């Protein structure tokens, strides 16, 4: 009798513990919460990326939780600092997955750190959305656990740039001045490639500079000699501002087009009149200081959540991470109450042109590709501010055609 009572008690106790855990033992998911592991640089020179990502995610999570959460569960975030180092990113991700037992990962890091974790994420079969990095390895080769959010493929930059410069700006003679570091060099290579393959155009001249250069006279004189119709500046805001100013000083009257990284308030602020008419492309459909009601609403919510935010925030990383948090929340909602990794992935693959508001580009995922966004919005500097240009690409992307 005594033994029977003990056994019954043990069985009841075991059943209690099983039932009181989430019904389907999915890591990171309990009856009342879903745990997301985020990572990105929140210290060091690239901190503007990770801080933006973290704060954008937190703002979205707060709003989603205030509205009732996902299927009655609140979202929780643990964010690890990777200091833009691949090894620290990997260490952080391992901790999130193995110790913190997150359901999924949110990559708010640059390409450098992202490539350091991809293999581990694939091996551990943890879903990860990459919001900011454009590293090709995220989507090529296709892996169902990896999603690319608001940012786009490196190849797409070249497609859009070449299309805009030749069809939008109607130029045939194009000069390229690009930074020698990885991101601008990739942009320049991609632009050169698509100018040739799509429009059979070779740049009339291509010159390079180093990040941190203070004078671009030799490069600009070489460009002036080649007499292009459009000059593409592919680099970062400090150099872009100096190039624009010096170009006008040296008498270059051509139209200047900038890569995505040059679309920054620092460029018209520092180049002043020299930046007027400067065009570029941006990952958001409207600029950060836009009077569009959705952007105004976002800024107000941001200011309320972070009343002592530093100047220059929110930046585009804040917005990208904010909107991508809503993307994954939508995926979780569609996956239903019994949330598992496979159901989440299948639900994400039902998203077609999804976006939380006009501050985001539409996101689409299918069972054949997880490239959420293929849009870049052209902008132009008018009266010292970036304003959108009404322009659509003239041809579809080749990015989705590739195996």
């Amino acid at each position, binding site marked *: 009798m005594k033994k029977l009572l003990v056994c019954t008690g043990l069985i009841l106790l075991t059943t209690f513990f099983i039932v009181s855990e989430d019904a389907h033992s999915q890591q990171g998911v309990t009856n009342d919460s879903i745990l997301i592991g985020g990572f990105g640089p929140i210290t060091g020179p690239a901190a503007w990326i990770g801080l933006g990502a973290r704060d954008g995610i937190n703002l979205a999570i707060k709003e989603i939780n205030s509205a009732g959460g996902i299927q009655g569960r609140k979202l929780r975030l643990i964010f690890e600092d990777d200091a833009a180092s691949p090894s620290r990113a990997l260490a952080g991700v391992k901790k999130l997955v193995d110790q913190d037992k997150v359901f999924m990962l949110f990559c708010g890091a640059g390409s450098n750190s992202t490539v350091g974790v991809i293999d581990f994420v694939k091996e551990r079969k943890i879903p990860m959305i990459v919001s900011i990095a454009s590293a090709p390895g995220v989507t090529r080769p296709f892996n169902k656990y990896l999603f690319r959010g608001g940012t786009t493929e490196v190849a797409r930059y070249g497609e859009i740039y070449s299309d805009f410069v030749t069809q939008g700006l109607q130029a045939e003679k194009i000069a390229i001045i690009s930074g020698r570091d990885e991101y601008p060099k990739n942009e320049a290579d991609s632009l050169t490639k698509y100018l040739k393959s799509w429009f059979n155009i070779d740049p009339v001249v291509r010159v390079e500079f180093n990040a941190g250069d203070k004078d671009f*006279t030799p490069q600009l004189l070489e460009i002036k000699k080649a007499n292009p119709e459009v000059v593409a500046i592919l680099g970062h*805001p400090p150099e872009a501002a100096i190039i624009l100013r010096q170009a006008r000083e040296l008498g270059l009257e051509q139209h200047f087009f900038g890569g995505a990284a040059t679309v920054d308030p620092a460029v018209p602020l*520092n180049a002043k009149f020299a930046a007027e008419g400067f065009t570029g492309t941006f990952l958001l459909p409207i600029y950060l200081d836009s009077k569009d009601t959705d952007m105004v609403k976002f800024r107000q919510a941001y200011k309320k959540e972070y009343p002592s935010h530093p100047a220059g925030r929110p930046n585009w990383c804040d917005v990208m991470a904010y909107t991508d948090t809503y993307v994954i929340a939508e995926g979780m909602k569609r996956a239903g109450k019994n949330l598992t990794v496979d159901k989440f992935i299948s639900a994400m693959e039902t998203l077609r042109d999804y976006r939380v508001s006009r501050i985001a580009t539409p996101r689409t995922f299918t069972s054949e590709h997880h490239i959420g966004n293929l849009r870049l919005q052209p902008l132009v500097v008018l009266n010292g501010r970036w304003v959108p240009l009404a322009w659509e690409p003239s041809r579809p992307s080749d990015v989705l055609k590739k195996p």
Partner: protein
Amino acid sequence: MLGLNIQLLVAGLSVGSIYALVALGLVMTYKASDVLNFAQGEILTAGAYIALLFSVTLKFPYYQSFFLTIILISGLGILLERVAFRPLIMAPPFTIIIATLAVGQMIKNLIRLIWQSDVHRLSPPFRMAIWKWQDIRVNTQAVWVIACALIITGILAVFFRSSWLGKAMRSVSQNQQGARLMGISVERVFSLTWAISAALGAAAGILIAPLIGVYPDMGLVLVKAFVASIIGGFTSLAGAVVGGLVVGLIETFSGAYISSTFKEFVAFILLIVLLMFRPYGLFGAKQARRV
């Protein structure tokens, strides 16, 4: 062709003046205290940001911002010398170098913490204009930087030659013990040297900011300034200026006539070649030692 060369000459002198201003600060601290100050680039950056605070945030007029910044950053130089470097006076040189690197990183990260990594604008003292003559175009702000570099060098030359304090600093740099015996407070001279060196860095930051913007990595110009100092001879102030101008000119002309890729490392090639023939630089001299 003449127009192109004159254009390149102006560009080279302009960027060379930036190197010269930073090199002056490096050489000063080395001459007086044997310390190679790798935080000089970040002191330049701090000067630009403090000027930004005064002129943009507090809306002080340019010259008021300029002088207040110089005073504040001079104070920073004294503080760094007293707190960070004087305690290490007997430490091996490598330790002191690491300390200067650490101080530089602390300053840079503090700047990032407050202002983030955005590029800010510091207005010049006068409206920027372009002087045109045939095909040649010259930015007046660039001329201002060149002129200021030369004026500052002249003032320092007169200071060191003619003033009691300047002579005291020269005597400390030659022989600390002898200077002490002559009643000179070596510690006070160190503090003053660091104050002047920091002021030079701040002045460089304020002068170049309207041309390149204000951002945390402005101080990376230290690398080229260091090369300029060695080329000029690390114990000569005039050499630092000449070295800076030479580096600026060689970079610009090589970028135009050879390639922009070459521009990046031509300064280092010049350094190696020069040191093979003149190991103490253009103006440096071998230190004579009594044996």
